[in-house]
């Protein structure tokens, strides 16, 4: 629980009203809003992976466990990554069985969808009386996060093959980084302005325009995401599992030395690679 007292938010002074302000601002409910269906064949795929499935092997779980970020918060149930590591070492058949069953039955247990959310003031804000001046941090079950990372790896692998991630997308790609993104943008510019000016071609005037996609993590409608994944012919079990993952998520705010009961929220806490791959693939706006 955060120990600093949060000043009145959007004019609200009591704890419950502050929680409501935070929920509205940080996790807007897009799920209930009307949405436009994607036109048929709006997106295409290079490869039909719809029916493909792969078992969750001991090796894949071990790989995911070794790449976890140790020392992070343990979530509501107090089970750490270290505990999971020891569990997998001593009984390597349990986690693959569990995760395989989750995929086969396209289930994400409700206990893994609960997050306790603390808020941290964003540095440099002029006023902290608005909910958007705070960054939510939502520690979740380590079991759930391990499961997510395994699915994220599968999506990372499947998405480019289905044409679901554009080559210009550098985020959450295993072989790309911020440096690659910068080089891709600025190398042609540096080349252009270093060319000699000729009578025929005057001095080049390169311009760079950057845009942020508005509220990207909250704007993804789960049904749209599902449609996108289907049209991209991503494996059916992944599409269904992500649908289960996205629904019935709950969050409980904790600050001012108080904590609220869990309430439904949108799936804004999705892990970036998972989110990004499914979403940016959709995306069109990014390509």
């Amino acid at each position: 629980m955060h120990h600093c007292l949060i000043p009145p938010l959007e004019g609200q002074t009591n704890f419950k009203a502050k929680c409501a302000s935070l929920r509205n601002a940080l996790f807007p409910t897009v799920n209930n809003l009307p949405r436009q269906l994607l036109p048929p064949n709006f997106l295409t795929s290079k490869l039909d992976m719809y029916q493909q499935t792969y078992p969750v092997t001991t090796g894949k779980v071990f790989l995911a466990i070794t790449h976890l970020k140790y020392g992070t918060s343990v979530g509501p149930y107090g089970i750490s990554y270290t505990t999971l590591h020891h569990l997998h070492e001593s009984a390597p058949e349990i986690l693959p069985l569990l995760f395989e069953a989750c995929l086969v039955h396209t289930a994400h247990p409700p206990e893994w969808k609960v997050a306790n959310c603390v808020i941290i003031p964003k540095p440099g804000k002029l006023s902290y009386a608005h909910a958007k001046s705070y960054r939510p941090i939502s520690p979740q079950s380590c079991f759930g996060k391990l499961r997510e990372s395994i699915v994220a790896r599968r999506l990372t692998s499947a998405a480019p093959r289905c044409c679901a991630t554009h080559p210009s997308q550098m985020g959450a790609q295993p072989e790309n980084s911020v440096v690659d993104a910068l080089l891709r943008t600025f190398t042609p510019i540096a080349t252009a302005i270093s060319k000699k000016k000729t009578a025929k071609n005057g001095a080049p005037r390169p311009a760079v325009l950057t845009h942020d996609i508005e509220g990207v993590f909250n704007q993804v409608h789960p049904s749209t995401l599902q449609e996108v994944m289907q049209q991209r012919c991503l494996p059916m079990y992944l599409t269904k599992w992500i649908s289960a993952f996205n629904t019935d998520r709950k969050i409980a705010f904790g600050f001012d030395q108080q904590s609220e009961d869990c309430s439904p929220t949108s799936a804004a806490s999705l892990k970036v690679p998972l989110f990004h791959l499914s979403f940016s693939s959709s995306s069109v706006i990014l390509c």
Partner: protein
Amino acid sequence: MLEKHHYPTDTTNTSYVDVVCMAQMSHSIAEANTLLEDRTNQHLHRGLHLGLTFAPSKSELLYCLRVNSKHKNISLSSHPTLRVMNTTIIPKHQIKYLGV
């Protein structure tokens, strides 16, 4: 159908999760602005189906000029304007892109 769209070689699109960067080579700033506006509108049009849009208040514009360019000393406000979603994007001497 979307994959068939290609920009000319004097353009670059780079995305990093939710940040989209468009680089445009041209022979005048006015032309660059027009082309960037067109490209932005194409993105917005395609994003409509997904309920996605840009936050124009966070958009940034940079003109990359040679060190010895005569335009270096011209006030940025004197350049032709670039408008995105009815918002004028003011060019800057430096922008922050991907934390750099």
